[in-house]
């Protein structure tokens, strides 16, 4: 029954009126996502000094991402399973193109200029890698064999190395983690996990010596002692912790954060946006935001649990968990617990590629959700 159902669904792409009159959407998920986006818009408006330029663009990205999500949600997960490799390949090629003809900013090549907008392929890989690994592992044996694990790791490392070369160590690590999450969920043996952990520890010194650039090392050192270089590398962290700390329980009020309004806070509408929220809405605001994220992850896991296929299960859970890792890394970075790396706050930070990719990821998630619903109803 699965087979025929899948085939029919693929064949009836775009012609679903015979089954249902409305698009198959997970309205609960949509409600949470739109709440997050609304919070993002409010904070961006405040952080950019009531400048509507960024707000308008962000709304445009959200609209585009949302549309993309609705379309993707109504494709079959099977399509994604098949297209995983294709998307992954596009990602790798565009990463290669970034290295060749990328737009340079702040000493790093991260963007491809598409004329009308700039694309950041490394953001794309944050979803493309879990998709690829989920697809690959679900096609081979579960739990994965040594060979499967090895191939998976190669598949993860290829984009990671390309991104490291941009250089963007932060994003590379996040991509790496997103792949590892899939491997972990797929049930690889404990001995692999332990030996992998030991290997990672052993790799740190060579990473420090051969891979990391001076400014990256500086950021790590700065994290431990921001006061050492108050006006240089330490400035960001001192200003962001000051913004967060001065917010208190309830914050200074929307558009009243002195740290952000008077431009003491750097990158206040992108990577450091949580500091604006913490300053203007306080710890309560941060907790509300985290609750939204927790509900979102909870929903992802519930979708994953309900999924019949290994691919759907793996992908849904890994998308949810990866997203939460991004959130955690961002919160930790801005509050001075982790070094400053380029990690935006999902759905809140300003940035087109990230928003569209995230919505794309959730589009796939929704079609996994739809699949299990349809399966149950047809059973």
């Amino acid at each position: 029954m699965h087979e025929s159902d899948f085939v029919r669904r693929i064949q009836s792409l775009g012609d679903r009126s015979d089954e249902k009159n409305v698009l198959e959407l997970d309205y609960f998920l949509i409600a949470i996502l739109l709440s997050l986006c609304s919070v993002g818009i409010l904070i961006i408006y405040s952080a950019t000094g009531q400048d509507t330029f960024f707000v308008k663009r962000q709304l445009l990205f959200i609209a585009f991402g949302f549309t993309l999500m609705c379309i993707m949600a109504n494709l079959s997960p099977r399509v994604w399973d098949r297209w995983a490799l294709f998307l992954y390949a596009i990602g790798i090629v565009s990463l290669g193109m970034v290295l060749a003809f990328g737009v340079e900013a702040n000493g790093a090549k991260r963007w491809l200029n598409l004329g009308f907008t700039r694309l950041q392929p490394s953001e794309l890989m944050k979803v493309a890698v879990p998709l690829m690994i989920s697809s690959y592992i679900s096609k081979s044996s579960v739990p994965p064999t040594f060979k499967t694990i090895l191939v998976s790791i190669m598949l993860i490392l290829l984009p990671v190395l390309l991104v490291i070369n941009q250089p963007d160590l932060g994003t590379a690590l996040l991509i790496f983690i997103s792949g590892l999450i899939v491997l972990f969920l797929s049930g690889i043996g404990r001995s692999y996990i332990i030996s992998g952990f030991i290997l990672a520890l052993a790799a740190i010194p060579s990473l420090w010596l051969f891979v990391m650039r001076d400014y990256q090392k500086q950021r790590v050192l700065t994290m431990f002692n921001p006061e050492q270089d108050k006006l240089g590398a330490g400035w960001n962290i001192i200003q962001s912790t000051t913004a967060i700390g001065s917010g208190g329980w309830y914050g200074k009020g929307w558009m009243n954060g002195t740290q952000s309004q008077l431009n003491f806070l750097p990158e206040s509408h992108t990577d450091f946006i949580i500091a604006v929220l913490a300053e203007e809405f306080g710890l309560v605001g941060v907790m509300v935001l985290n609750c939204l994220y927790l509900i979102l992850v909870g929903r992802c896991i519930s979708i994953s649990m309900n999924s019949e296929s290994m691919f759907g299960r793996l992908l849904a859970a890994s998308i949810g968990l990866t997203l939460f890792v991004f959130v955690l890394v961002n919160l930790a970075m801005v509050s001075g617990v982790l070094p400053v790396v380029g990690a935006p706050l999902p759905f809140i930070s300003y940035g087109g590629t990230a928003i569209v990719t995230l919505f794309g990821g959730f589009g796939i998630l929704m079609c996994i959700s739809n699949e299990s619903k349809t399966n149950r109803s047809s059973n």
Partner: protein
Amino acid sequence: MITNTFVDFEASRKLFVKRVVISGIFVLILLSLIMARYYDLQVTRHQDFVTQSDNNRVHVRPVSPTRGLIYDRNGKLLADNRSTYNLTIVRERSEDLDKLLADLGSLIDISENDISEFKKRLNRRKPFANTALKFDLTEQDRSILAVNSFRLEGAEVSAHLTRHYPKEAMFAHAVGYVGRINEQEMSIIDPVRYSGTDSIGRIGIEKEYENHLIGQVGSEHVETNARGRVMRLMSKKDPQPGQNLTLHLDSNLQQVAYNALENYRSALIAIDVKSGGILAMVSTPSYNPNAFVSGIGKKHYAALINSADRPLFNRALRGQYPPGSTIKPMLGLIALNEEIVTAEHTISDSGYFYLDGVSRPWRDHNAKKGGHGADVNLARAIVESCDVYFYTMSTEMDIDLLSSNSKLFGFGGKTNIDIPGEQIGIMPDRHWKKNELGEAWFDGDTVNASIGQGFMLATPLQLAVMTARIASNGKIVTPRLVKAINGEGIEPNHENSDLTDIDTLHWDYIHKAMQDVIHSPKGTANKISTGLNYRMAGKTGTAQVVSIDADDEYDKTKMQERQWDHSLFIAFAPADDPEIAVALIVENGGHGSVIAAPIVRLVIDEFMKTSTNESLVLR
């Protein structure tokens, strides 16, 4: 298509659920840790960060007080504050300082000196502080900068009050000037008190009364953004302006004296006999004090400092000259009081004086060949300035007695005038000679001292003080420039002394002799009595030059002129109830009656013109 068995499927599903649960727990633990960090920042250390964020944005800026004004006794302004415009730069607001400097240089004239001074100031300024690049912009500079301001990010034109001396050189040596606080001064001043100003009194009244003039700095709390731009004013504490000073100086008198002396090297002091107030204080050549206010150029300064005429040298206070015959009335008084001579005592003057054991005779400088002749008494010796009378008298007068009595008239010590820098001259005695020269005192030294020559040196101020003390029958009043502070008069400082013990008859005798110097046809200054409608008393003096400036030796042609005698004159008027006492010395002016006396008369004439209807004007 299902390749796995049902059992496999169930097993892998269970394993997956287990892994999801583990991941979920792991994620929740991490989240708790991070939330603990946020709790620590936002609740535990909240207050610290509130303080830190306020320190970030709220800055206290000093608000300059207005420096107190300086008036003459008639309410004429001697020092005020003018609005000037400076070009300043905030380093942090300029993206490329060198480019900005180059841009500014292409628009207005900025010298290399401006830039090097600017860089010095830049090194000791606080972050986001305005640093001055060019002072006192012209109207044209300002409009050029205003038009181009859009491309001069970081540079701005700021208005300041700058000290200004409307009378320029005329009062320079009395009022003094302010200058920019230099590094040395920076380390000793109270940084809070001076936070609103970059000027400090350097010399004269401006220095001595600095604490009165400066005022209290105000402050304003402003909110600034990260680039230091002020967003709004939060609160303000107004500054307290400095106190205004009214001086005893009279612009009219000063003007007359200055105009007459402008082309000489000279010093004149006029004292109000009753209050000790300085009515005029002139030292020529002078300089324009306005040049020092915003920092004088190196060339300009070098010209002033290297000038053979030494315009920066305050001769009135610091010039030390042999007083010559001007001390004869004082010596007469001392001799009468100590009963060394009587009024009736006479000598015969052959033109020369011989001291036992000294082959070379002392000449009488004021007599034609043959001397003053017979029957020269003390009065005649003063009126005709007979040296031999005093030479003879000196043999009877011990130098220590002469010295200690002369000190009561103000010689050899500070007059305690209220501006810094006065010299004390030399009033020699045995102890002094032993100490300074390691030699014993000779009787010949006393002979020299008896006509104000030899070792004796006095400042013009000391001569004026002596004249005032003679005029007031021995009242000792401290000379003062400042008459009132913020309209509140300063009481004259009287001192008790032995001078008042001197018999009135002696005073009258000396006063009469001094009147005859002018009013008697035989008087040395009789020429100035023409048309005089009041009684004046005075004494001429001619001092042989002991060069006061070692540099003169280099210039032969000037050397000749500078070996000429100094011309001195002291006087007081009106003679029956003295109000004003004047002392004047004109370097290399020749005989005292020729140059000094007529100028003193001009000054006293001016005083007498206004003294009858003088009204106190206090500000």
